[in-house]
């Protein structure tokens, strides 16, 4: 459904992505892991053409995202929900108004429906209490969850999560990981989750993609991933004391 074809992305002469190819099937949950600064966020941004590859192509079904403009690009973006690494809430709107924004400004839904969908999304991320507060008044983790509510409120069929659980306490992290899995099971939402929480990823993802220095180092199901003999993957796993028996707790 989503396909990266040999994508190279350079900034100021430095290749951040250096020939990245992979595919994501419809209804799949793909976790993207890797050290800081390897271009995980950059990879996600290519999917909605916030960035354009230096060379290579990005496809959504038969639409070339990396060349889409105008109405085509709007139609592509319509299909994505996006949780940004920092939440990216607008400072002068309350949490509820932020979540309502895509419904009000774009879909122009009637007020009653907007309210019920906003409440539903906020409830899913356990943020109903903070609905009327401004982003500056809530913690980073809460901003993250509000951003997540905004990403899911549009009922889009693909959701991109950029570090949904970083900065959250362990209990909330598990709730969010469960939510990602539940959205996928109940609504068939295709998900790409960038995360540092490898343990969580092994439990909720269908496949795991590891990026390092602009290359795909490993792309496999959790069962294979934990037993990988690739030294870079091993190093990554051992640093977090992950062993194959972890998989028994699968979400």
């Amino acid at each position: 459904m989503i396909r990266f074809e040999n994508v190279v992305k350079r900034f100021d002469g430095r290749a951040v992505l250096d020939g990245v190819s992979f595919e994501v099937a419809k209804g799949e949950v793909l976790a993207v892991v890797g050290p800081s600064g390897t271009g995980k966020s950059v990879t996600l941004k290519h999917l909605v053409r916030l960035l354009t590859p230096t060379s290579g192509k990005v496809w959504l079904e038969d639409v070339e995202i990396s060349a889409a403009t105008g109405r085509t690009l709007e139609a592509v973006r319509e299909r994505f929900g996006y949780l940004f690494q920092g939440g990216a809430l607008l400072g002068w709107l309350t949490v509820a108004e932020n979540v309502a924004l895509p419904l009000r400004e774009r879909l122009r839904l009637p007020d009653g429906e907007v309210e019920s969908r906003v409440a539903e999304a906020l409830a899913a991320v356990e943020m109903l209490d903070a609905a009327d507060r401004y982003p500056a008044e809530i913690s980073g983790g809460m901003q993250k969850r509000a951003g997540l509510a905004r990403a899911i409120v549009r009922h889009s069929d693909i959701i991109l999560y950029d570090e949904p659980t970083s900065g959250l306490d362990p209990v909330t992290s598990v709730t969010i990981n469960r939510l990602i899995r539940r959205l996928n099971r109940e609504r068939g939402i295709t998900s790409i989750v960038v995360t540092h929480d490898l343990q969580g990823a092994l439990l909720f993802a269908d496949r795991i993609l590891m990026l390092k220095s602009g290359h795909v180092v490993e792309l496999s199901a959790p069962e294979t991933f934990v037993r990988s003999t690739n030294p870079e993957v091993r190093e990554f796993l051992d640093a977090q004391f992950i062993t194959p028996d972890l998989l028994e707790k699968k979400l």
Partner: protein
Amino acid sequence: MRITREPSYEDAPKWQVEALRRHVVTFFANVGHAGRLAVESLACLPGVLARGDSRASLVRQLYVAGIRTLPVISVVGLFTGMILGLQVGLALSQFNQESLLGATVMLTLIREMGPFVTGICLSACVGSAMAAELGTMTVNDEVAALEIMSISPVKYLAAPRIGALLLMSPILAFYACVLGVVGGGLVGYTQLNVPFQQYMASAISIAGVKDLFVGLLKATIFGVVIGAVGCHEGFTTRLGAVGVGRATQRSVIISFLLILMFGYMVTRMFYFEFSV
């Protein structure tokens, strides 16, 4: 208009000359993009006025651009007039022509200095703040979030800001002129013994509709320039907090340069070619 958040060159320049060339090319490219942003924003304005939410944001920007800058513009306008009054008055008094003081101050203010000082104030107070605010939003991915929701940042963010400056700039320039003329009159009366009535009579008799029109036209153009440059620099901010600082600085420098250039061009157009 697609907002790019990438460097325009993918490799580092090999030679100093090449780096210089790129700076020049980038400057003009930026001015061109800012111009396009201005045109697109102005085209959106009717749409902004049509909807309640966006009308509210226009009103907020009108307040920011118009009301909050009043104190600064009052002081600057008054003192500009006083300085003009003093300098011109001293020169005129050498030829015993103090009676022309009002006319000279009025013409200088309305044709040139009023719009100019207003532009400088707006660019320093409002344009820079726009660049900083939008720049912060850009580096925090807030602008990207709008784009993904297919909410046009041009319509949602730039149009109310540029529209507010478009409306407010001529009003403020007129206000600065009025205060300046009064300031010049005060100086004339207290330091040079020019009766205030005579001063005002001379000032009012000289000011023609054309002068007022050209002055306000200049101010309007300056307003759009400041807004467009501020928003464009904000939208193209990269590289975190450092980038926001740089965008703010650049917005002020670029609008200063453009204010001078447009000021000259408009003057040249109306006072040279049409009325030799």
